[in-house]
């Protein structure tokens, strides 16, 4: 079964903005309450490691949505559709990826490693994951077919 691609984009955008917003709020509150210390050098490290995990994808989504919103009616005569299975797969990958990033922070109090060490180590499991997510989202937000 095929579904319109505009709906899938919107749903994926909601997923990504919700997850990224929650992650951003976590980092913000931790910085405010001094979790990362009081030195500016110490505070820059976790922000510098965490932002690249969601900001590029968010930028991509925003850019595509803006482009779609500003497109003329002539370009939108033919409604593009996508297989529902593929949409569901992309949703699952996005949710799993965002949950993995959020849980890295939420489970840090129970770890023997410090939060900064965990964030540094998270590249081990997020890097391959990120490739799959980016590829699946690219099909929705980059392809014009």
């Amino acid at each position, binding site marked *: 079964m095929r579904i319109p691609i505009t709906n899938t984009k919107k749903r994926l955008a909601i997923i990504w903005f919700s997850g990224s917003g929650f992650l951003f709020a976590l980092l913000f*509150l*931790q910085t405010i*309450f*001094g*979790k*990362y*210390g009081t030195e500016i050098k110490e505070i820059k490290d976790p922000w510098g490691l965490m932002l690249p995990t969601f900001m590029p994808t968010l930028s991509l989504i925003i850019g595509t949505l803006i482009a779609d919103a500003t497109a003329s009616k002539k370009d939108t005569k033919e409604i593009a559709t996508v297989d529902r299975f593929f949409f569901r797969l992309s949703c699952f990958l996005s949710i799993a990826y965002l949950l993995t990033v959020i849980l890295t*922070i*939420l489970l*840090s*109090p*129970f*770890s*023997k*490693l*410090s939060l*900064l*060490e965990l964030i540094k180590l998270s590249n081990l499991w997020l890097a391959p994951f990120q490739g799959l997510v980016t590829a699946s989202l690219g099909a929705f937000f980059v392809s014009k077919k």
Partner: protein
Amino acid sequence: MNKSITVSTLIILLALVTLSSCVNYRTLERMRQENDTKERLIKELQKYSNSISNYNDQLKQQIEVFEKRKIERNKKNIGNTEHIDNTQALLKKYNSFFAKYHKYQQHKQSLRETAQDVIDQKKAMLENLKTALHELENLLYASVGEYEQTILISHLRQRKLLKNQLRKLNNEINQSMLYVKQMLKLEEENLKFNYSISRLQEIKYNYRVNTGSNLESMPNFPWPPLHPSAYSVIPSTLLPSLTNNHYLKNVAEKLETAFDQAGYSQKKYYQVPDGFVLVSQLEQFNSDGTSKTPPDRWVTDYLPLKKFSLTSYLKALFTANPGRYRIIAFIVTSQPFEESKKTVTREEAMAWLDNGMVILPENIGKQPYTDKHYCTAFIYEFEQPGREKKPFFKSLSNLTGKDHLQKSNLWTALQQ
């Protein structure tokens, strides 16, 4: 005739029989008496022999007792002789010292005499000069005419010179007197100093011989003590009372018991002037000062969250949760001290438990606990902001010394 013969013979026979019977009776009596006396004598002899044997036994016992006493007396004599030898040796030392002192006294006396001789000589010179002056003055008064006037002037000049010489001689005499006095004083002080040194050496030697131990082998705590994060003076009411002739070992026992009751199983002793220091092992504690529950209490590494509660989880998620460590040292001494400005690292503080003595040595424990002694608890606190960060010494704790002691249950244990 025949009848008379027979009658007479019969009478004679009767008489003989009666005689013999009398004789037999008497002999029997005598024999019985002799037997009786014999038996009596035998009985008495037995009595005497029994008493003699008793006396013999008593004599033997007395001899044994005497022998034992003799042996004991010999032992005492040996000990006494040793003691006598020691005291004789000490007496010899003192005699030799006093002989030296006597020599010094004689030397002093001779110095006095020589000084006195010098003074007498100078006095004699002075007298001679005075008589010469008198003669000149007499000449002066007896002079007539101009020739006598020139002689008078030269005489006056000589008199002036003589007066100056007299003044110089007086000064020299005074100076030599002062010099002799100073020399004598110095010698006396030197003697006293040497005597006190020898006495001190003797006391030190006797102390080592009697105790059989060397004070220098007990490790020393840094003195003056390193700067703590917090401190608290322990009230004397929590320590053993002074009225019952207590020693430092009683104070040590009280502190050890308090540590044991508060859960500190490992502690070490160090030496300080006229006292000791009892140091606990490093422990982790919470921000409110209470000790963490074992085994986390004795872990020296940064600890993750183990028990889940929403408050503790949110606190651990959003705030920095540093590791807090402390070491408590009880310092017992009669010497007033000012803490050093130097600080200690966590590794150096942990090394205090690697060195040190497990029990308080007897020679320190037997020292009397006087009203000059006091006990101070020094708390050394360390903080580790994160696992990847090094722990550092907190020069000023958020809690007072008494808070630390109360929260670690040491105060309650001391009150018991």
